[in-house]
C-alpha cells in the first residue's frame, strides 16, 4: 500500500532562499511602475540618498519617485503582507481550522471598523496614531467575540466558524457603512481607501509606525510556535502535555489582532493573504509552526510586493486597488479549499 509519507525540507535553507527572492522582488519593484526606471538609476538614487553618489547624477523627479514613493511603498507592502500571513497562521492555529483568515472570519472588518470609527468620530484628526490603535482594538474585539462564539470543541467546526465570521464581518461592515453615511466629504475620501485596500499612499512615516508593531508581533508569535503545535492536538490534549491554554489563547488573540490592526490601519483590508499563504507554506514545510510562521511571513511579504507592483503596472497610469487584486486571486483558492475539504475528511 502506498502510504502518505511526510517529507520535511530544510526550513533554514528555504528561509534563506525565500528571503533572497523577496529581496529581489523588492529591489525590482523600485524601478517598476508607470514610470519605468533602469536599475542603474534606482541604485544611483539610493546611493545619492546616502551621499555615496553625486545628487546631480539623477533628476529630482526620479529621486522623488524612488525615495519618496516606491521604497516606502515596497517596505510597507512587505510588512503588511508578512503581518497578515503570520496572523493567518496564528488564527488558524487558535481555531484549529485551516480556513481561518483575518478577512474571512471578520477580524479585518473589526479592525477596519476601529479605524473608520477613529476617523469619523474625530479621533484621527486629534492624533494620527490613534487610528492604528483603534484598528487594533477593533481587531482584538472581533477576534475575542468570534472565539467566544465559535471556539474549537464547543461550536461545531468549520461551519460554525465561517458562519460566525460572516455574521461578525457583516455587522462590522454595516457599522462602517453607517459611519460612511454620516461622514463628511473629506473623511469619505480616506474611508474609501479602507474598503478597497491600497498601498498607494504609503509613506515613510507609515513604515516607521508599522515597523515596531510588526517586530513585536513577529517576536511574540515566534515564541508561540511550540504552543501552536500543541494546540493542533485539541485544547484538552494540549493541556495534558503542559500548555496553559487560556493564556496561550489570550496571547494569540492579542498578537494576531495587533498584526492585523497594523496592516489594516495602513493598507486597508487586503483579504485572503492570511489564508492562501499559510496553506502554500504548509504544503512546503509541513505544519510545524517553528518554520511555518517565519516562512509564511516571507511569502506573505513576497505576495503583496509582487501583487502591488502588478497593480500599478497592468493598466498604467491608473492603479487597480490592491484589495480587489488580492480578492480576485484569493476567492477561487478559498473555494477550492472548501470543496476539497468537503470531499475529504472534515
Amino acid at each position, binding site marked *: 500500500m502506498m*502510504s*502518505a*509519507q*511526510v*517529507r520535511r525540507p530544510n526550513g533554514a535553507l528555504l528561509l534563506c532562499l525565500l528571503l533572497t527572492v523577496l529581496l529581489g522582488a523588492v529591489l525590482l519593484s523600485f524601478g517598476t511602475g508607470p514610470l519605468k526606471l533602469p536599475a542603474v538609476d534606482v541604485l544611483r538614487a539610493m546611493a545619492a540618498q546616502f551621499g555615496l553618489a553625486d545628487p546631480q547624477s539623477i533628476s529630482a523627479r526620479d529621486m522623488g519617485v524612488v525615495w519618496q514613493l516606491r521604497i516606502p511603498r515596497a517596505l510597507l507592502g512587505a510588512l503588511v503582507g508578512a503581518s497578515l500571513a503570520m496572523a493567518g497562521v496564528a488564527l488558524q*492555529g487558535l481555531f*484549529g*481550522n*485551516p480556513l481561518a483568515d483575518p478577512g474571512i472570519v471578520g477580524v479585518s472588518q473589526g479592525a477596519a471598523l476601529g479605524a473608520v470609527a477613529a476617523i469619523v468620530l474625530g479621533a484621527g484628526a486629534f492624533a494620527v496614531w490613534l487610528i492604528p490603535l483603534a484598528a487594533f482594538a477593533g481587531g482584538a474585539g472581533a477576534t475575542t467575540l468570534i472565539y467566544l462564539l465559535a471556539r*474549537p470543541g464547543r461550536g461545531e467546526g468549520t461551519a460554525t466558524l465561517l458562519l460566525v465570521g460572516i455574521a461578525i464581518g457583516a455587522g462590522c461592515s454595516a457599522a462602517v457603512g453607517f459611519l460612511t453615511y454620516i461622514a463628511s466629504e473629506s473623511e469619505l475620501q480616506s474611508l474609501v481607501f479602507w474598503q478597497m485596500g491600497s498601498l498607494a499612499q504609503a509613506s515613510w512615516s507609515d513604515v516607521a509606525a508599522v515597523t515596531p508593531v510588526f517586530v513585536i508581533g513577529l517576536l511574540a508569535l515566534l515564541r508561540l510556535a*511550540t504552543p501552536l*503545535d*500543541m*494546540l*493542533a*492536538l*485539541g485544547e*484538552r*490534549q494540549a*493541556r*495534558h*502535555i*503542559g*500548555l*496553559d*491554554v487560556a493564556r496561550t489563547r489570550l496571547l494569540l488573540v492579542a498578537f494576531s489582532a495587533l498584526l492585523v490592526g497594523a496592516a489594516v490601519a495602513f493598507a486597508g483590508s487586503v483579504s485572503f493573504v492570511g489564508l492562501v499563504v499559510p496553506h502554500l507554506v*504548509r504544503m512546503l514545510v*509541513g*505544519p*510545524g509552526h517553528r518554520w511555518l510562521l517565519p516562512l509564511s511571513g516571507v511569502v506573505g511579504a513576497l505576495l503583496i510586493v509582487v501583487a502591488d507592483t502588478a497593480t500599478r503596472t497592468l493598466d498604467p497610469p491608473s492603479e487597480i486597488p490592491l484589495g480587489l487584486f488580492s480578492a480576485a486571486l484569493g476567492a477561487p483558492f478559498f473555494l477550492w479549499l472548501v470543496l476539497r475539504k468537503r470531499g475529504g*475528511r472534515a
Partner: protein
Amino acid sequence: MSTPLLELRGVSVQRGSRQVLAGVDLALLAGTLTALVGPNGAGKSTLLALLAGDAEPDAGKATLHGRALADWPVRELALQRAVMAQDHAVHFAFSVREVVAMGRLPHPPQPRQDAEIIEAALLEVDVAALAGRDVQTLSGGEAARTSLARALAQQTPVLLLDEPTAALDLRHQERTLRSARELAAQGRCVVVVLHDLNLASAYADRIVMLYEGRIAADGSPREVLTREIIGKVYGQPVQVIEHPTRGVPLVVACDD
C-alpha cells in the same frame, strides 16, 4: 499501606439537573492497574476527567500527591500524569512521529534521550512502521495508538487512558493492556476506562465498577466480576465462568 498517589474524596459532579457523580471516594496507588468499568453514562469519563485535572468537582476534593489538582501548575501536572483522551483528531498534517514527540514537550529537552524515548513509544504501540505518515490519513485504530504512544512518551508516574481499546483490533487490544500492565508493574499508577469486562478481568489488578455516579463494586476481578453484580449493574444476565487458560473470571452474556 502506602499513601495514595491520586485521591478522590466525596466528589460530586452536577451537569444541569443530572448528578453525574455522587459522593465518590477513591484512592489510587502506584504500581496498580485499575480498570474503571460500568454501563454507558455511569460517570467513567467524568471520573477520569477529574483525575486528569481537566474538570473540578462541584463538591469534594481531587488530589494528586495530596495537593488539589486545580492547584497544580499545568506544566508540572504534565510531568506527573499523561492522558489518552477519546478524541484523537489532530488539526494539521503532522506526522505520527511529530505527534508522539509532543509528549516530550513538558520535559526539558534532551535531544538524544528524547529521540530514544520517542522510538520506544512508537515500537511499544506498534506504529513504528507508520512513523512518517500524515496523522490525518490514519485509520481510527492507528490514530488511537498514536495518541497512546504520545501519552507513553510523556513518561509520567500516572497514566490515565480513556477507552484506549475502543477502536482497536483484538491483537492490539491485548497488546495495549499488556503495555499498561507492564507500566504498572514498573511502579506507575495506571487507570484505564474499559467497556470489555474480560480485558479488565485479564489485566487489571483492581476493578472499580461505576453505576449511576456511584461506586457499585471495587476490588479484584474475582470479587467484582460476579453474576449478581454484573446482572444488577448492567441489567444484562451473564454467566461467569473460568477462563480456559488465564485463570481469571470470564464473563459471558446470556439470554434471559
